[in-house]
């Protein structure tokens, strides 16, 4: 019985429980719902939830625990000596699992009988062909101990599966029965269901938090692995980024500084574009624009935020880059020869700045609107003009919030990838010239992981170290931004 089937059965029991619980409550009340503590549906929901939730928890826990138990039981069967050069226990175990799955599949498709699988140990090569026939290709040869382990794995998995089904359905039935017995006219089903809903909400919130935690942990583990292969001091302080490609091995220079410099330079130019334009747009929209103009212009401006960044990247590559070259390039309008090619910090920065305008303007607009009307009245009542009011009263009052908006835009700029890949080039260098090609941390993460380098090599693992560095920087910026925004909120309460 598959897990999906099991879930469906449990849900079915839940529905049955709902109907039964509701019916029992109604009959206990003599058919008059006014005699009940809660509405009849609450009694039904109580029984239904009791049938579903504990059973699901059992199933979930079982799915996590069973592979761990089987793994530790089976892995003991593989002798140390058989672990091949360049391999390790976990790779062997994945072979074992694949053989076991292959056998299951072969039986399922009728390519082998249950009896044949037991005797297959005598002809391991034939088994390999058989498995390839059902679509399970194995990299290495099947050894005796692997086969034995696979057989044991199958047996354990089969037993585990049976008990899992029994345990889940039993849990469901027990929950149903207990809740059904509790149902009476004085039972406070409404409050119990309320608590159940609270649990659901808490679970949803914890999933988000746990996912973040999981991402951070996976980054940390891989980063630790990286630092075992490559010195942390070189990573953080080396001035050059020059990864050699795997196969030749060693000799890579993986300094983050050139990448960080590129990231910060491009983000700086992007903010230089986005902050004034976004802020002035926000001031116009919130302070000067009439209602119809605002209703029309604000969604249009926010449309910019909806454009996929790859499209911005194309815009940078095909339009802005050549345009800049025609001005700052060798034969350009200025004749200065500052710019060698279309991909440059300036190209990516300008386009990224355009992308960030709606972030700055939309948030700033909300914040400026949140400044109480009394402030405007107070200033206008003293004979200040509109722009004096904006400059001297509204902007200072909104400043913390605006700074928060800018910091959020900054962390967005630092994490941006596609525009950089297409607009800024791929050369990691430390240069002050904004018309040079440079690259960023994110772009290098992509190129280090999408190559064909060995995943265990420092050239690939460096991506995680880059990732976590970036994560720490943007997290810091976000926390700082939130802190400032919160401080601002207290001001008018």
């Amino acid at each position: 019985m598959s897990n999906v089937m099991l879930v469906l059965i449990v849900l079915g029991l839940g529905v049955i429980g709902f109907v039964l619980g509701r019916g029992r409550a109604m009959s206990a009340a003599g058919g008059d719902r006014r005699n009940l503590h809660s509405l009849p549906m609450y009694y039904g929901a109580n029984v239904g939830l009791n049938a579903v939730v504990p059973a699901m928890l059992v199933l979930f826990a079982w799915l996590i625990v069973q592979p761990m138990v089987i793994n530790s039981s089976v892995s003991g069967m593989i002798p140390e000596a058989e672990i091949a050069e360049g391999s390790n226990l976990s790779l062997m175990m994945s072979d074992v699992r694949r053989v076991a799955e292959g056998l299951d599949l072969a039986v399922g498709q009728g390519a082998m009988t249950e009896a044949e699988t037991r005797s297959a140990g005598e002809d391991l090569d034939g088994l390999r062909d058989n498995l390839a026939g059902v679509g399970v290709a194995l990299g290495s040869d099947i050894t005796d101990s692997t086969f034995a382990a696979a057989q044991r794995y199958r047996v354990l998995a089969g037993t585990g599966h049976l008990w899992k089904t029994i345990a889940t359905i039993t849990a469901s039935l027990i929950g149903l029965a207990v809740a059904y017995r509790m149902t009476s006219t004085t039972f406070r089903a409404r409050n119990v269901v309320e608590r159940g809903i609270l649990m659901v909400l808490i679970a949803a919130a914890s999933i988000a938090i746990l996912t973040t935690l999981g991402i951070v942990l996976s980054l940390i583990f891989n980063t630790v692995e990286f630092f075992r292969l490559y010195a942390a001091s070189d990573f953080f302080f080396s001035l050059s980024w020059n990864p050699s490609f795997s196969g030749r091995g060693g000799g890579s220079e993986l300094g983050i500084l050139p990448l960080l410099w590129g990231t910060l330079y491009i983000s700086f130019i992007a903010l230089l574009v986005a902050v004034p334009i976004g802020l002035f747009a926000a001031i116009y929209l919130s302070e000067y624009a009439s209602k119809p103009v605002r209703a029309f212009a604000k969604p249009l401006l926010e449309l910019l935020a909806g454009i996929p960044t790859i499209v911005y990247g194309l815009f940078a590559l095909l339009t802005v880059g050549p345009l800049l070259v025609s001005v700052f390039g060798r034969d350009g309008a200025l004749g200065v020869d500052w710019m060698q090619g279309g991909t440059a910090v300036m190209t990516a920065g300008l386009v990224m700045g355009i992308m960030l305008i709606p972030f700055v303007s939309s948030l700033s607009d909300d914040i400026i609107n949140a400044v109480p009307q009394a402030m405007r009245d107070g200033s206008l009542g003293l004979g200040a003009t509109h722009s004096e009011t904006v400059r001297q009263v509204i902007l200072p009052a909104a400043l913390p919030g605006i700074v928060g908006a800018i910091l959020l835009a900054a962390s967005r700029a630092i994490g941006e990838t596609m525009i950089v890949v297409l607009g800024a080039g791929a050369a990691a260098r430390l240069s002050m010239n904004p018309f040079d090609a440079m690259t960023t941390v994110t772009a290098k993460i992509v190129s280090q992981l999408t190559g064909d380098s060995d995943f265990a090599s420092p050239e690939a693992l460096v991506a995680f170290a880059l990732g976590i560095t970036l994560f720490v920087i943007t997290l810091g910026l976000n926390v700082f931004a939130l802190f400032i925004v919160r401080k601002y909120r207290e001001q008018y309460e």
Partner: protein
Amino acid sequence: MEDMYQMDRTMSTEQDIKIRANGVQVYYADNQAIKDVDVEIQDKMVTAFIGPSGCGKSTFLRCINRMNDTIDICRVEGDIRIDGEDIYDPRVDPVQLRAKVGMVFQKPNPFPKSIYDNVAYGPKIHGLARNKAELDEIVEKALRRGAIWDEVKDRLHAPGTGLSGGQQQRLCIARAVATEPEVLLMDEPCSALDPIATAQVEELIDELRQNYSVVIVTHSMQQAARVSQRTAFFHLGNLVEFGDTDKIFTNPEDPRTESYISGRIG
């Protein structure tokens, strides 16, 4: 009491009219909020506008410094003159007008700046001080007039929003007088204050009368009786009765005024 009344009477005839409004109509989109109001407000005197909520007294007050201009749908007709000059004349700059006609609002609204900067805001904008020393002097004078100097002189650079409600309102009054206005408009200046702070602000209003023409909108009839010399009673957008405060409260001519001050309507 009778003497005071007499004295005020003679004073009011002697003193010239500061603000003269004729046939003022105010519309919010299609709703008429003020219907044909004529009023004459004398200099160096406190004039109170009373009336039930929504009667148009605040709207009329905001016509006097053209604050209604900031509301898109608001339209003002008629003629309002300050010192004989039509303030709705196209040649009049509303910004300049508001410097001459200060305003204090219902809720204290200090800017999120220091106490000093709150008061210095108006003088700085209008260039009233040539240097820092002069500005300091203006700020101190305004804070003294606002009867708050002693409480804040040691913390001029603390934020104005950190003061208590009554102090904030006196700070706002100081801020308004710092630009040397000729008329001070007050829109229910005590409605957000406790009785003690109210008493302080009322005392202050009485002092301000010596230098300014003060117009105060209030919901409290006791307050109108305490602080004002002249009272106008508004009802449903009409100016029902306008006269000396003592007369309005002791011997009103219009039956609606009498009903309102005795608590039967409103």
